[in-house]
Structure formats: C-alpha cells, structure tokens
C-alpha cells in the first residue's frame, strides 16, 4: 500500500508535467472559441450600422458646412493566444503567410475602426475625416524578445458634424 507522502510527490510530479499541456489545450479550444465569439460580435455591430461614417478624406465633401469638430481617438491592445503564437513560431521556420496572426490583427484593426465609428455616433458627429491607424508593439523585454506578444492599435480622426 503506497503511503500518502509518495502519492503526494507523484501527484505534484504529474501535475507539473500536465499543466503546460492543460494550458495549451485551454489556449487551443478556449482561444478559438473566444476569438470566434469576438469576431461574430464585431460582425453583428458592423451590420447594425446604417452607413460607414469613417473615411480617410482630408476635407469634408464640397457643399457641406461644418458646425463642430473635434479630435477622436480610440485604441485597443490585441494579443494572439498561446496556441496562435506557437503556430506562428512553427510556421516561421518555413516562412510564408501566418494565418493565425492574420486573424487576430485583422480583428484588432476592424474592432478599432468600429469603436471609432461608435465613439463618433455617441458624441453626435456625422462623419470622421482623415482616419489614421497606428500599430505599435508593446510588451517586449530589453532584448526585444516578447514572450506575451501584443500590439496596440490606435485609430484616430477628426469628427465633424454638418449643418
């Protein structure tokens, strides 16, 4: 009959081997589920918009008089899951298109633009002019390696309301 101390040591040992695998599995299934939900949520919000009020034009369309304007800015920090990062590292050995990172970056950009649209509407602006996107990497250590990669996406523009 195995004594309690022995079972404890064996338990800790198996847990220490299994925990990365468990986290990996959570990252794979949980991450895919979570990100799919985020994408569907974004699609639903995009479809609910009557028309796109964001543009990269530098001045309002001719014949329209602007009565109010202000700078609008919104940001989002998007991060790939551990599974996607692992996938990307394997893929980067062979090179080529890394689909798993494409997905999260694309989501982040669209989400940032969608938030800018919503910010403009909630502040009573008719249109956002000269929308710009900035992306920057954060969370890198001194040597430039990032264990938990994430990017900040900043969307900004000038909100205008017409007469």
């Amino acid at each position, binding site marked *: 009959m195995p004594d309690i101390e022995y079972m404890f040591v064996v338990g800790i040992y198996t847990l220490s081997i299994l925990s990365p695998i468990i986290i990996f599995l959570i990252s794979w299934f949980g991450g895919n589920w979570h990100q799919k939900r*985020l994408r569907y949520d974004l699609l639903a919000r995009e479809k609910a918009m009557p028309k796109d009020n964001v543009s990269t034009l530098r001045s309002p369309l001719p014949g329209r008089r*602007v009565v109010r304007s*202000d700078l609008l800015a919104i940001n989002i920090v998007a*991060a790939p*899951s551990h599974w996607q990062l692992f996938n990307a590292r394997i893929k980067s050995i062979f090179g080529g298109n890394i689909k798993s990172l494409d997905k999260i970056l694309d989501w982040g950009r669209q989400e940032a633009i969608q938030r800018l649209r919503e910010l403009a509407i909630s502040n009573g602006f008719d249109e956002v*002019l000269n929308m710009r996107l900035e992306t*920057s990497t954060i969370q890198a250590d001194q040597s430039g390696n990032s264990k938990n990669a994430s990017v900040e996406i900043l969307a900004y523009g000038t909100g*205008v309301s017409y007469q």
Partner: protein
Amino acid sequence: MQPNTGTPQVAQIALSNIETIPGRTIIQSLGVVTGSTVRAKHIGRDIMAGFKNIVGGELKGYTELLQESRNEALQRLVLDAAQRGANAVVNVRFATSAVAGGAAELFAYGTAVIIQ
C-alpha cells in the same frame, strides 16, 4: 457643454488631425507643439494580461493604461499650445515607442495656430 470625447478639453483648444479646423480660418501659425509621457505597466496588470494571453483577444488592462497615457500626452500638448497663446492645434499625430523593458512612450505632436 460637449460630452466626453475621450480627449481632454482644456482651455477650449480645438484639436484636429487635418490641416484646418473645418469651418474656421487660420490667422497665424505658432510652430510645433509636443506632449509626451512614459508609462510603465504595473505588475498586477501584467499578471492578469499573462492569463488573458492564453486565449488571446483584447487585453483590457493595457487598453485602459494606454488610453490614460495618451490622454495625458494630449493634455500636455494642449497646455504647451495654451502657453503659446494658441486656440487650436491642427494636424495632431500620435506616435508610440517602447523604451526600456515594460515601458512605453506615448507622444503627440501638432501645429499650434490661432483661428478666427
């Protein structure tokens, strides 16, 4: 009274990221104004972000942190403009750079002008 637009409203300075304030005329240019801030994330947020990183998606803690920092940078830009006697800043741009590990510099710059 304007609703909160996410940008600071100090001393009634109009901001835009195009060459003019739409519907107004620029009388005089007062040169480049800048505002910057360096922020580091605190360890609690770092740990929470580490957990969130397992499934990916948005890291809300960092989003808020960067939003606060950017607002501070903008506020400094606006103060700089107010000191020069401007009443608007046009062509505002943002830049972010990672300095020493774990800290990010947020930087805003633009041209201070007087509008009619």
